[in-house]
């Protein structure tokens, strides 16, 4: 970091001066924190680091992932280390992939008032309100596709006036889609059966009996699928 431009940020209201090139997460560490909560993958995949902030002088509250967002001058911030979302318990084997299932497990989706706060808050740029609409209508495949990049950070749910836990609706839709709606894979079932019947035992046993030189020979001359 050669040209160190610095900015002032306020972590839980306390002022710290940090390099402008840092993410919110790194800036907290620069300020002296050893993170316990609010830090998982550090790469935008796990949703551990939801953060709420406001820039000095502005009205709007913003939400983002601390590991994916650079600090800005005058940022007042706090993390949302835990969100008490509602997850329903179910047996995936006993469900049907339709709107009734959604209505039974997450009836609050029908209380959506269309404020779009969920979508505005999503750090993954998902159209959250849209995927909830798909869930309401039982269009589970669309709900699954639309919610696919969800990191379950909870920001959407934290802003919802209707008390919807969107990300739990999303995962239910995805699991129903993967299990019941997506086409079954014939070649997979066939191979699993072959293995159970012992059809691949002999070829594996033969390879296992080879010494390193023999294996090397086979490896170096193996044909490679185009």
């Amino acid at each position, binding site marked *: 970091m050669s040209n160190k431009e610095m900015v002032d940020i306020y972590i839980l209201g306390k002022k710290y001066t940090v390099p402008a090139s840092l993410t919110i997460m790194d800036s907290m560490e620069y300020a002296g924190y050893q993170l316990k909560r609010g830090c998982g993958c550090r790469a935008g995949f796990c949703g551990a680091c939801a953060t709420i902030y406001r820039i000095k002088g502005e009205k709007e509250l913003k939400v983002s992932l601390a590991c994916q967002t650079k600090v800005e001058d005058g940022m007042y911030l706090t993390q949302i280390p835990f969100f008490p979302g509602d997850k329903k318990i179910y047996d995936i084997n006993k469900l049907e992939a339709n709107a009734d299932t959604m209505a039974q497990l997450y009836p609050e989706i029908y209380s959506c008032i269309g404020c779009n706060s969920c979508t505005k808050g999503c750090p993954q740029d998902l159209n959250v309100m849209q995927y909830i609409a798909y869930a309401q209508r039982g269009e589970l495949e669309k709900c699954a596709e639309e919610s696919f990049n969800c990191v379950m950070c909870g920001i959407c749910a934290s802003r919802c006036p209707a008390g919807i836990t969107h990300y739990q609706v999303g995962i239910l839709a995805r699991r129903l889609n*993967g299990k019941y709606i997506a086409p*079954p894979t014939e070649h997979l079932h066939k191979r699993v059966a072959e293995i159970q019947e012992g059809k*691949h035992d002999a*070829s594996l046993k033969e390879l296992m009996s080879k010494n390193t030189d023999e294996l090397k020979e086979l490896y170096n001359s193996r044909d490679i699928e185009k």
Partner: protein
Amino acid sequence: MYTAQIRELIKKVEATRSARLGSDFPRMTPEQREEVLKEYHPDYKEKGFRKLRIGVNQGDKVPLELADVLEVKSRLGNIELDLNKVHYDVDVLIIGGGGAGASAALEAHQKGANVLIATKLRFGDANTMMAQGGIQAADKPEDSPAQHYLDVMGGGHYSNKKELVQALVKDAPDVIKWLNDLGMMFDKEEDGTMVTTHGGGTSRKRMHAAADYTGAEIMRVLRDEVLNREIPVVEFSPAVELILDSDGKAAGAVLYNVETEEYLIAKAKTVIIATGGAGRLHYQGFPTSNHYGATADGLVMGYRAGAELIFADTIQYHPTGAAFPPQIFGSLVTEKVRSLGATPINSEGEQFVFHLETRDVEASAIIRECLGNNKGIETPTGVKCVWLDTPLIEMMHGEGTIEKRLPAMYTMYKKVGIDMRKDPILIYPTLHYQNGGLLIDEHGQTKIENLYVAGEAAGGIHGRNRLMGNSLLDILVYGRRAGTHAGQKSKDVEVKELKLDHVNAYHQSMEENGIQTDETSPMILPHYTHGRE
């Protein structure tokens, strides 16, 4: 956002692009591979390693940073603990809530065992969540478990434990089926055929994926299922030491509540270590792609208890870590970017290595291009690196491919103002994976009775080098195997008196070997200051 200076350099890549498109760059010969590994792979750098002075692997070399956490005192050294004050009493204790831990929990629960998962961060804050590229399994007609076996052995330079490889490739199709039945959304054709691609070192296209959120999709589904089965999970409660009983068998662990700073005793009939990798030890100063909790805790606890390490000196540096901009430094650029056709390019706009060599070879070739041939690019922050020519992907597979098949990558770069569909990206190897770990058998058992290891903490399966897509596979194959076996076995175990004698013995041995230190381990959480003085 690229600076004007970098923009200027991109022109050289653009100038050669159309000529490179469709031309085959030759793979290295076996001799060329040996040579580049010897000269440029960090594992061959003697100064990065030292020999262990105590324990089962006394005399074996391991990375300095690992030795530094193995050869120090237990965190429990000066702490008074009443081992009879048991807070959790279960059949199977699973340490670590990643993919290996979750799959072990499901199978042990299936066997009727009373299971507890104790994990360091939140359930699912784990390397598994970050895996993008895919998972291997030989389930297509033109492929076979034997073909898969050959690839694994060749990739591992024939050092792998054969029985472990056999179990890996044989269980693989069933793992995919298991995930599919749990509702994982695999990439499929309309007729249900799996969309599969090559990975470095594969001879068949057997990489299954869920876009480039493969690990996240696996983790989300497994976590949801563990919660549905109401298996208890305690978060922010890492294990800091194993507990053995008076017969020397594994019998639980001491957990540390990082918030209340209390130590809690978890008693169990069988124990599964599923704590994952060690990227956050930053071997040889490399940045890492790993999650925040990857600090080799499982290796430390297991080693103190007498479990054996294997191949702990072999580390996987992923060829393509992000080198620019600094916010994403070290983050992974999934191998799938190369599987889909992007190739490494030097400062002159030339390709210098086949894009799908095994990872160790590919990474070494990139290091050679920068340090040996001096044909790297230097970023404004002084990092040497090379290009990965991503626009090739859409020229080969059509517009929209990147957004559809690599949404996580596309989003990561978009957030930092780079459009990888139009511009190449800058990459350099990043510390990615520990190839070795604690030695296991086909059931995930160590030589300490009732102690199992699964996932990245285990060693032997991949030998000295793992191929992409075989780790997500192994954590599930061995997570399930360990869970099943430990769940079953727990029915016949009677735990004797709980002891930490092995810790005292380890301290004693340190003293006898003249090792003096006040440092303690496991590390639990890394400490970063980002250059603050």
